[in-house]
């Protein structure tokens, strides 16, 4: 039941250098493309996998720099008795301090005893696996894990293997070839059938325990393969490789007939059964082939909610569904900076968990716009839609996510924004100015590269809109408010905002005769954000109004306001 306590990668593919202390359970790597997620998974696979022949090429070296060797060091804890064997590994046993992440060359009381395995590939492209120990090196000793131990430790990888099996079913080249041959050599096909009949159920008895586990696991996961699954000679393979044994359902249909998702789900479920021996599992693109409810099921079967975690999982995902199911301590953002890669834990601090649940897509984006409230989110979405119909690229398509802070104190957007900032995202805050945030908080955020777009002096979004739009725009907004909330309510709001100095009719009349007076615009802005009954205080209301009214009117609006809006899109579009 070994677990990876520390990973150190140097000069491997996209990664120049990385040091990472993964979690004992789920390690879900997220981050933009080319941030090294897959390289990390591959590194673990290559270092811990039990393969006698691994082909390395120059392309496996970072920037093709073959002068610096590839080095992958993995420190394993939770060692079983065999791995603590004094005769075999005594000189290589070390200790790991989980608090500080430091590794000492020798075991220590109250620290975990660990082994460090190092894979080195120099320019001769020959991979070398060794155990790391300063004291052994000092004595000129060197050894690697025993082959049996490597096989036990080898992680299970759920990757392209499932596809290989599917390849047979979907009329792939292989299958087509076999069809043609079946015509050409019926005797071979018959021999295969005869062999299958002769072999009969022999495998059934030898593999009874495995079949039982497969049946139970499949049943638990809701994969319909029936109670009486069988192990039979695979007729397909007989004709090619002289006979392999594969799993078949109760009707004698090979289990690889299952969909990608089911196959992956089943392999993951089976892996958990085997966790007593090999507890590390590697999954590329967790969501691949799975509907949302099956993603949730897969995460469940990997032990995402279990304590202590039954498996140590390293996976990548781009699925908001998966993120929503995971805790912040199971999520790691992969980042490059200053020549080093990092996998930063998202963590559970300061409402991070609720951010993950509400805005999982933000974690999958490269840029995040933290909006003070629903109206700001609606505004940007609506404007984005308007811009899209006019031939601009949608900012969402450029990897920008919008996060709603849901109002609250004026510092709240910055709390959330700095959390994203700490994880290496580029972050902007769009905020009202009616309640000003603590100056130092905002300055610190900006100093760290954050961007702030604030409505002008003392304004909330509604103030800004009613002050800045053209006459036509203002009336359209007013009409939309009436449409949404009714004449009476809007009228009441205007009256109360103007302390009965004006009402709806009065303002409409102003618009018809002399144009809307500046003080009326102020009154409308105030009325529009009446407590608990804001005219556009929902994402949908504001989104619609923004798309239908604000967007088209922007060309006629106050240039300073237009500049503010355009700065948001310019920043977002900068993502490239």
């Amino acid at each position: 039941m070994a677990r990876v306590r520390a990973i150190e990668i140097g000069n491997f593919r996209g990664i120049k250098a990385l040091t990472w202390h993964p979690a004992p359970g789920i390690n879900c790597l997220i981050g933009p493309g080319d941030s090294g997620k897959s390289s990390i998974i591959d590194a673990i696979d290559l270092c811990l996998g039990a393969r006698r022949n691994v082909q390395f090429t120059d392309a496996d070296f970072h920037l093709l720099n073959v002068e610096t060797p590839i080095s992958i060091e993995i420190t394993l804890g939770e060692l079983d008795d065999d791995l603590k064997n004094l005769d075999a590994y005594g000189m290589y046993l070390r200790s790991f301090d989980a608090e500080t992440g430091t590794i000492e060359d020798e075991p220590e009381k109250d620290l975990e005893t660990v082994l460090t395995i190092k894979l080195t590939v120099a320019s001769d492209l020959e991979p070398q696996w060794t155990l790391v120990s300063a004291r052994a090196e000092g004595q000129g000793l060197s050894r690697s894990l025993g082959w049996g131990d490597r096989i036990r430790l080898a992680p299970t990888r759920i990757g392209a293997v499932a596809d290989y099996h599917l390849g047979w079913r979907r009329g792939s080249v292989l299958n087509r070839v076999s069809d043609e041959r079946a015509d050409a050599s019926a005797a071979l096909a018959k021999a295969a059938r005869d062999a299958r009949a002769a072999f009969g159920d022999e495998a059934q008895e030898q593999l009874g325990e495995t079949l039982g586990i497969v049946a139970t696991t499949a049943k638990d996961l809701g994969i319909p393969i029936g109670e009486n699954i069988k192990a039979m000679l695979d007729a397909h393979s007989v004709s090619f490789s002289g006979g392999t044994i594969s799993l078949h359902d109760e009707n004698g249909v090979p289990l690889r007939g299952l969909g990608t998702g089911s196959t992956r789900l089943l392999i993951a479920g089976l892996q958990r059964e085997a966790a007593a021996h090999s507890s590390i599992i590697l999954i590329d693109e967790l969501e691949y082939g799975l509907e949302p409810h099956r993603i949730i099921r897969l995460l469940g079967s990997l032990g995402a909610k279990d304590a202590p975690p039954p498996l140590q999982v390293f996976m990548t995902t781009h699925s908001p569904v998966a993120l929503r199911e995971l805790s912040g301590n199971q999520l790691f953002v992969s980042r490059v900076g200053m020549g080093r890669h990092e996998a930063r834990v998202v963590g559970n601090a300061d409402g991070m968990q609720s951010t993950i649940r509400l805005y999982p897509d933000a974690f999958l984006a490269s840029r995040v716009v933290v909006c003070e409230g629903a109206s700001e989110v609606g505004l940007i979405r609506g404007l984005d839609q308007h811009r899209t119909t006019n031939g601009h690229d949608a900012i969402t398509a450029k990897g920008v996510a919008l996060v709603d802070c849901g109002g609250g104190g004026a510092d709240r957007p910055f709390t959330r924004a700095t959390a994203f900032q700490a994880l290496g995202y580029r972050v902007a805050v769009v905020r009202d100015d009616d309640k000003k945030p603590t100056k130092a908080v905002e300055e610190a955020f900006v100093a760290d590269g954050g961007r702030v777009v604030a409505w002008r002096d003392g304004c909330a979004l509604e103030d800004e809109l009613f002050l800045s739009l053209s006459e036509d725009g203002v009336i359209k907004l007013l009409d939309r408010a009436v449409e949404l909330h009714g004449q009476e309510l809007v009228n009441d709001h205007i009256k109360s905002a103007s302390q009965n100095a004006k009402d709806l009719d009065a303002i409409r009349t102003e618009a018809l005769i002399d144009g809307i007076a500046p003080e009326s615009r102020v009154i409308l802005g105030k009325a529009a954000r009446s407590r608990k009954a804001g005219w556009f205080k929902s994402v949908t209301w504001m989104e619609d109004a923004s798309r239908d009214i604000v967007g088209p009117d922007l060309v006629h609006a106050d240039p300073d306001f237009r500049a503010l809006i355009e700065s948001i899109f310019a920043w977002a579009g900068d993502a490239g």
Partner: protein
Amino acid sequence: MPGDHIDLLAISRGTVTAPAGCGKTHLIAEALTRHGSGKPILVLTHTNAGVVALRGRLDRAGVPAKAYRLSTIDGWAMRLISTFPMRSAHKAELLHLANPRTDYPNIRAAAAKLLKAGHVSDILAANYARLIVDEYQDCSIRQHAIVGFAAQVLPTCVLGDPMQAIFGFGDDDLAKWDDDVCAYFPLAGELATPWRWMNAGAEPLGHWLLYVRDMLLRGQPIDLRTAPDGVTWVELDGSEDHQRRLRAARVRPPGGQGSVLIIGDSTKPDGQRQFASQTPGAITVEAVDLRDLVAFARAFDLAAPEALERLANFAQSVMRNVGAADLVRRVQSLVRGTARKPPTAVESSALTFVHTPSHRAAVDLLVEIGKEGGVSAHRPAVLRACIKALQLCGGTEGLSFHEAAIRVREQNRLVGRPLPRRAVGSTLLLKGLEAEVAVILNASALDARNLYVAMTRGSKNLTVCAPSPVLNPPI
């Protein structure tokens, strides 16, 4: 052979008292066999010879090698501290053993400290199912500390017999049986069936020896006249003691089969050698330090004028009927050309050595002396080691005779000593060896423990030379 219903695998911390010949090794072998698969049991004993002997007996009993790991306590301690040098914080030179007298106690202290700190507790538990320590009466205080701290992690059973505690470990005192050992490892049982004598058809002797042990333990006198058949008292009345002893040493084993152990005074090794040289077919059992050989090797200088004399004296000290002084005189006259008789084969070899001194020539001379009529080795272990060392330094560039002798000595430590048909030694040297007949040359020189060890060496017959039939040795 049941072990008096003592189950070593059921003892989580305890001592089993095991009088001589009561099936202790069998008890260990039986437990190891029953333990079967899974993690091995760590079995520790004291000397390398003990390891060799125990391994041989476990092999013969069919104990699977995977069931146990066998080592000396010191060897295991060295292994531990060399594997974790930073945690034991010992000086690296310690393991070179340049000063054994101080190095061994320091190694033990370092290992005890390492175990006490608990740095390797999980590793011990991962490696061994339990710990069995044999010959625990020979444990020093520091070795006892090592075992005691290991016992905090591993279920531990120690076996031994305070009546057989005759070793001392130099600067490292023995652990006291009652005060130290039994206080930490409570008494879990005592073996009481004299299997060795029962198997040899001498059950009454076996029971009588258990009675003797009990009496000696309590400081009571024993009377040889009340002993069962097989025990002979040879009276030493001062008239012809040496002759009587020599006659006793020539005793034939019952039926002419089996071997004889002749036990002399451990403080007088020269006396033992004299007996060996005067007893046909007897050879000495040598201490593993081969002190005489090492001393000879240090002093022996090929280029020195007295080289031949030293070599001849050495030959005389390990072989019967060698006249060293005559040989030296003859060679001198041959060199001067005053000798009338032509040289013998031995004298020719000696001449070759004098003319062209070499290690090779020294070996040839020793071999030639050994071939002479009437000459036989009574200290063959020393002679063989000497020849081996001379050959080794003759064939290795830059290796001195002294270094070669030390190397041979260290190699010899690791191999078992074959039991000769008729061996002379002290209780210290003969402990752990068993024969059909034991002859004690001077019972009154032995204390209670040495006497008990001496009396229990023979499975069929025992001859005791003493002035009085009543023995009342000090404890």
